């Protein structure tokens, strides 16, 4: 069900206040840069605010907002001169036999961010943010079966990362 009428400034601020963490993390998982993610979110919020005249036609404002953030983030990636994902560390994520729990967790966090594009977003939205399949469908414009398949495959890839590599410290 959409909003009964054009969204007021108060309603918009309330929504933004509740969602800003989720929107930021979503942008960050694309852009991997705090400043750029913040800019992407603020730009997206401004775009949504400009479209508020039609806010009553939007069935799920939150999902719509996340879609705007996604599109904004992807646009920024395209406009980057370098490779899309900027990683501070050149090594790919891997767990070593002797790694402590902290090191393992860190490695897995890298592995999540290094998932192929098609899987990374669904894993982020489901396993990090806790969105329902229907919500993920709306945000990423995917069918339900696509969402389920990508989650299954994404988790499988992460499971492979759990197996320690042969190397040790």
């Amino acid at each position, binding site marked *: 069900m959409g909003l009964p009428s054009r969204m007021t400034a108060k309603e918009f601020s309330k929504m933004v*206040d509740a969602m800003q963490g989720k929107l930021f993390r979503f942008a960050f998982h694309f852009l991997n840069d705090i400043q750029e993610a913040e800019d992407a979110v603020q730009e997206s919020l401004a775009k949504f605010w400009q479209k508020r005249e039609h806010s009553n036609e939007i069935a799920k404002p939150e999902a719509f907002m996340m879609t705007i953030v996604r599109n904004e983030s992807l646009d920024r990636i395209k406009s980057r001169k370098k490779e899309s994902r900027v990683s501070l560390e050149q090594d790919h994520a891997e767990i070593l036999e002797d790694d402590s729990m902290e090191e393992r967790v860190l490695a897995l966090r890298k592995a999540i961010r290094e998932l192929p594009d098609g899987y990374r977003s669904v894993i982020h939205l489901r396993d990090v943010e806790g969105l*329902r399949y229907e919500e993920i469908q709306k945000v990423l414009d995917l069918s339900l079966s696509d969402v389920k398949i990508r989650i299954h495959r994404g988790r499988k890839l992460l499971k492979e990362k*759990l197996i320690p590599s042969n190397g040790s410290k």
Partner: protein
Amino acid sequence: MEASELKKLIDKYFEGETSLDEERKIKETFENNPELQHRFPESALFLALVAEKEVHPSKDLAAQFVQPEAKVRHMNFGTTLKWAASIVIVLSTIFLLFPFNPSGDQAYSDSFENPEEAYEEARKALAMVGGKMNHGRSGAANKIQKFNTVIPLKN
């Protein structure tokens, strides 16, 4: 949660068949039970997912959109009544101190237009009053006269 139950849920998770509630339970179990973290290597993944949600922006992104709440003064009934009473008192005082005193022709708007006619009516009114007064006096005078009559004493 028992280790065996946890193992089943983890297998179900990797098959993509867990509910949101079950996924939340797995994360909470590993967060709150360090001993289980060592028994299950998969715990690193769930702890990583929890850690990913702890990423926050460096500033309040909503700040530019948050509207300060407008101060709304609510006048209660008591206050309204006091104001109304004060106004009534002030107006009453004004009218008492400065009564409506029409001037000019307004003061005589209900009088006779013909002065002779007015005189005749006034004369009749006074005569009536006078007649009533004389009647009253005569009655009183008669009663008083009674006391003035000398009644000789009998020897």
